[in-house]
């Protein structure tokens, strides 16, 4: 069970950090190129498909065969080009396999963060950035001192959504490793207790722990909702 908590903590930190920062970077950078729409669609497509589909797609990318055999997985083929030995991406515990699973999640959810942050970014009045530039700020300073503070509330909402998503993450792990090789997360453990071990008491306990972890987010949402209502 400790493994499940450790992995879920890893998921929360890595997944949330990367989805939100990639989403933010894409929202800001894509605004500067003319083919913004196409790239946005490409990054966003994984949101439309199921986690089962995404897990299958990536299981194939990670496919592993012993050294000497021809590698049919993209990642091991690339490793081979650089002369490295093939890696069992989903077997090497505890870091490589967990990170490989998290990458699938990041691949799916970055588009979500990007869409929301991009909408918020486009709402920032252009004059604010222009004024900073005229005052001699370089692009990085404009980003740090003007864009980032204005996007902070949206980024906070997106980040909490990601945390909620990731605390309940199930499908990716279920399809790709079924929690073997120390990749279990909380939701998978609960499923196992329920259906494999017929241990309904323990499964309920895990569900309650999950709820306790999410209560702060719930309160945050309610407070935000009340503030919105007060404005209206």
């Amino acid at each position, binding site marked *: 069970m400790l493994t499940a908590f450790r992995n879920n903590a890893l998921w929360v930190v890595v997944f949330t950090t990367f989805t939100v920062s990639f989403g933010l970077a894409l929202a800001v950078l894509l605004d500067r190129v003319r083919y913004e729409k196409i790239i946005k669609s490409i990054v966003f497509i994984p949101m439309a498909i199921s986690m089962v589909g995404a897990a299958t797609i990536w299981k194939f990318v990670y496919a592993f065969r012993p050294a000497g055999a021809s590698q*049919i997985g*993209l990642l091991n083929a690339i490793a081979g080009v650089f002369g490295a030995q093939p890696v069992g991406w989903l077997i090497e515990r505890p870091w490589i396999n967990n990170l490989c699973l998290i990458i699938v999640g990041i691949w799916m959810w970055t588009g979500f963060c990007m869409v929301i942050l991009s909408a918020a970014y486009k709402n920032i009045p252009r004059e604010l950035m222009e004024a900073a530039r005229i005052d001699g700020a370089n692009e990085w300073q404009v980003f740090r001192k003007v864009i980032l503070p204005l996007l902070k509330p949206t980024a906070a909402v997106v980040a909490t*959504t990601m945390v909620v998503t990731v605390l309940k993450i199930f499908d990716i792990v279920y399809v790709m490793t079924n929690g073997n090789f120390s990749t279990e997360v909380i939701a998978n453990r609960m499923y196992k207790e329920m259906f494999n071990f017929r241990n309904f008491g323990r499964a309920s306990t895990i569900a309650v722990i999950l709820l306790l972890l999410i209560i702060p987010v719930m309160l945050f949402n309610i407070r935000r*909702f009340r503030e919105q209502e007060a404005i209206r």
Partner: protein
Amino acid sequence: MTGRLTKALSRGPLHIVIIILALVWMLPTLGLLFTSFRPPNDVACSGWWTVFEHPFNFTQYTLRNYETVIGRVGMGRAFLNSLTISIPGTIIPVMVAAFAAYAFAWMKFPGRQILFIIVVALLVVPLQMTFIPILRIFNRLHLAGTFPGVWLAHTGYGLPLTVYLLHNFIGGLPSELFDSASIDGASPLQTFFRLVLPLSVPAIASVVIFQFLWVWNDLLVALIYLGGTPDVAPVTLKVANLVGSRGQDWELLTAAAFVSMVLPLIVFFSLQRYFVRGILAGSVKG
């Protein structure tokens, strides 16, 4: 002219980074697509990227995998099951939610505020909380492993978000509309059907798309409530089982995965705008 050129050059790295990123995002899916059209022997011996050595040599592509997957493996049946689950699993909650959202937004009744706060709180409650109690009830009512059971489950899980999204929209309609309707003697029911429903079509469309994709892509709810009943299994469940039982038959897995993704992809490409609008309106789905 030179100014434009230096500008383009200084932006070179930006373009390169963006294009590499787009490639990284696309390659895994392309790999799946190409593999699903290759004969089993090729798939087992060489990487899918080798098709690009002669991309127009059509003898290296085949439709056999899809024949096998849709027929013998049962993805065709699973596709119909998914439709049977998703269509009522979308219509029922959106219908209920439209009534509820109107009531929450414009009708006065005791406890309205607190009830709606409960809806907001329910947005993030983990589904896992509900599995054991609901499964017990379903077992007693013989709903476990049946379509109506899953419809009910998806209605319950879908309602918080659909009510929340529609409430935001319907609550934003101008109040003069409702004042004049009540002066003209319209009952709440008439106001709903004649006024609110026609005006909310865009919002309802994005909620429908959202809920449909959510139900179609769901694995966990199907796994819990349909679990051991293969003849009602949706595509996601079928693919997940296939990965477990035929993990090395990549030509079948990729074809099956693509069958499971084709409808969401069509919906996505034809209705992307509504989908994005739904996401923007309620980035709080639990």
